[in-house]
C-alpha cells in the first residue's frame, strides 16, 4: 500500500434539471496514513462534491479517474461498504430523520459497521453506556440521544451529532465538510477535540473549511487549494494563514 488514500484524475458530473454539469475536472490528491489534510477554496469549486463522491452518493457520475482507499477501489463500493471499510463523512448539512430515534439510529449504525468488520455487536446496555460517555465528552445534552435524529436540533447540535457518530463509528478516514461553519468558539473546540481524539498513525482526515480558526485547534499537516474542480496548489499549514489574510484571488490568478 503506497498511500492511504490516492485520488487520481477524478472527474465527476451531476445531472441538474436535465443539464449535465461537470464539477470535478481532474482531482489529484494523496493522503498518507496518520495525516490531517485541509481543502480550502472558493464556493462552487467542487469541495463538497468531492466529499460526496468519496462517500458514494449516487447523484454524481464519475466520468474518469480512480480512488484507492487502503489499496481498494473505493468507487466500486456501496456507501455502506465504504463506511464499513473505515470512511466517514461528516455532512455539511446533516439530514433530519423524523421518526427515527437518535440512540436507535446510532446503535443500528454502530452494529452494522461492527458486523461488517467482523466484530461482536453491542447490546442495548453496553451501547447506551458508550454513547452516553461519548455524548458527555462532546458536551451534548443527554436528551439528544432520545430525540429524533437531527430533528429540531440547532446548527451546532447537528454538528456535534455528526462528531458523535464519528466517535462511535471509529473511522480510519474522516471527511469533515465545513463541520465548523456556523459554530461558536466553544463548539469549534469540541469538534476539533473530537477529531484530535481519533488521531493516530492509522487515522487520517480531510477537512473542508473556509476558516483558519478551526485549524488553530486542529493542526493540519497539509493544505490544498481547490478551484474549478481541481487542486491548484498545495502547501504547509502556513498556506491557510496566508489565505485567511489575503483571500483566494491571488492564487486563482496565478493558477489561471
Amino acid at each position: 500500500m503506497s498511500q492511504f488514500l490516492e485520488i487520481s484524475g477524478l472527474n465527476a458530473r451531476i445531472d441538474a434539471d436535465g443539464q449535465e454539469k461537470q464539477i470535478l475536472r481532474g482531482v489529484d490528491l494523496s493522503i498518507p496514513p496518520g495525516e490531517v489534510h485541509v481543502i480550502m477554496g472558493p464556493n462552487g469549486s467542487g469541495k463538497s462534491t468531492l466529499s460526496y463522491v468519496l462517500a458514494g452518493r449516487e447523484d454524481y457520475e464519475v466520468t474518469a479517474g480512480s480512488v484507492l482507499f487502503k489499496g481498494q477501489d473505493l468507487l466500486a463500493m456501496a456507501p455502506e461498504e465504504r463506511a464499513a471499510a473505515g470512511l466517514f463523512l461528516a455532512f455539511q448539512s446533516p439530514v433530519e430523520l423524523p421518526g427515527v430515534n437518535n440512540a436507535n439510529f446510532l446503535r443500528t449504525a454502530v452494529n452494522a459497521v461492527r458486523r461488517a468488520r467482523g466484530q461482536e455487536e453491542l447490546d442495548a446496555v453496553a451501547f447506551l453506556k458508550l454513547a452516553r460517555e461519548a455524548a458527555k465528552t462532546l458536551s451534548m445534552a443527554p436528551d439528544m440521544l432520545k430525540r429524533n435524529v437531527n430533528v429540531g436540533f440547532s446548527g451546532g447540535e447537528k454538528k456535534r451529532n455528526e462528531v458523535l457518530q464519528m466517535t462511535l463509528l471509529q473511522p480510519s478516514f474522516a471527511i469533515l465538510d465545513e463541520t465548523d461553519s456556523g459554530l461558536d468558539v466553544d463548539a469549534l473546540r469540541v469538534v476539533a477535540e473530537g477529531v484530535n481524539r481519533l488521531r493516530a498513525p492509522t487515522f487520517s482526515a480531510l477537512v473542508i473549511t473556509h476558516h483558519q480558526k478551526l485549524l488553530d485547534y486542529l493542526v493540519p499537516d497539509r493544505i490544498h487549494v481547490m478551484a474549478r474542480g481541481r487542486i491548484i496548489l498545495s502547501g504547509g499549514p502556513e498556506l491557510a494563514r496566508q489565505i485567511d489574510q489575503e483571500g483566494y484571488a491571488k492564487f486563482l490568478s496565478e493558477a489561471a
Partner: protein
Amino acid sequence: MNTISPDRSGPLALFSQRLEGVAGAERQQAVAALQRVGLPSRRVEAWKYTALRALGQTSLAAPAATYDVMAARAVLDDVLAAQDTLAGLPRLVFVNGRHAPELSVLSEAIKVTFFVDTLRFGTAAAPDRDPLVALNTALAEDGAQMQVEAGVDAGALLLLSIGLGGQDSTFSFHPRHAVVLEAGARLALLCVQAGQGAYFHNPVTDISVGNGAALEHVTLQLEGDAAVSLGTVYANVAGEGVYDSFALGVDGLLLRHEVHARLGASRAAVHVNGVQRLGATQVGDMTSVITHAAPDCISRQTVRNVLDGHARGVFQGKVLVEQIAQKTDGYQMNQALLLSPDAEIDAKPELEIYADDVRCSHGATVGALDDEQLFYLRSRGVPEAQARQMLIEAFLDETLALIAHEGAQALCRAMLARKGGVGASA
C-alpha cells in the same frame, strides 16, 4: 319470500341460494334491499376505487358447522405470540364466524351475549343504505354483543376472528357484533381478524358510546392471503363520549374498513386513524363518513399508507357537518409512501359543511422514500434494505403512536415488522 334470480349478474349471484332461504322480517327486508340495488359495482360512487371482483365466480356457501381445532389454535397461538401481554387479556374467539367458547376467556366486567341467541340486529346500520350491511343482515350467523355498565372501566378485550379457508374461496361468514358502553364506561377493544387461505369475511359492528364513555377500538386486518375482508362499523357517540378507532391493514387480498361515526351530542370526539401496509397485488380501502350532528365536537383522522409492488391503497374520508354543528373542529390527513412505480394510492377527501362557524382542514401527500435520508443512513454503514425498513417504520411511527393502548400499539408494530421482513436490529 324474496327470491334472487339465479341468472342475475354480479357478485350477488354468489349468495343467491342462501338468500332465498332467509327468514324473519329484518332479514327479508335486507334481501329486498339487495334485490333492488345489488352488490356495489365501481359505478357506485362509494365503491369507485374498490371492485368486488376479488370475490370470485364460485357460489359462497355458509361456513361448515365444525372447524379444524388444531388449525384454529395455531392461528390463536401465532397472534398471542406476537405480543406478550395479549395472552393475559380476556378474549372472545370466533372461528369462521361462529363463537368458539373453547378458545375464549370471559371477563366479568363485560356482559356478553351472542347474536345466535338474541338475533338482535341493532339500529345503527340501515340495510338499504349499505348493501354490504344488508348482506350481513341477511346472512349473519353469530356475533358478540358486548356491554359495559355505567361507570365501569372494563380494561381491554381481545375479539379474535379466525378464518380458515382453503386455496379457493368456497364460503363466507358475516359476523354481527355490537358494543354498548353505558355512561362513563371504558373499554379497549382489540379486534384481530386473522386467518389463512381464501374466504369472504363481512363483519358489521354496531357501536354505542354513552355520555362521557370512551371506547378505544383497534382493528388489525391480518386475514388469509387470498381472503376478502369487508368490514363496516357504525358508531354513535353521545355527549362527551370518545370513539377512538384505529385500523391496521396488512394481510388479505382485498381489505376494506368502513367507519360511519356520528357525533350526536356536544363535546363528543371521534378519531378514525389507520395504517395500510400492502404489497404484491393487494388492495386496501379505508373509508369513513364522520357526521357532526351536534356543536362543539372534534373529529381527527390520520391515515398513512405504505404501498409496494402492484398494491393499491384507497382512502375515502367524508366529513359531514350539519347546520347545528357549530364550533366543529375537524382534521383529516392521508399520506402515502409508494415504494414501487406500480403502487397506487387513490385518495378522496370530502367535506360537506352546512354550519358557518367551523374549523375543518384536510390534506393529502404522496411520495417515495427520500434519497438523501437513505444515503445518510447508508453512509453510516446501514445496509440499503435495513435503511429502507428504518425509513418505512419512521414514516409510520407517529401514526402508530396514536394508538393509546400500549399492548395494541405493540401488537401493530410487531405485525408490521413481520410484514417488513427485517425489523431494525436496534
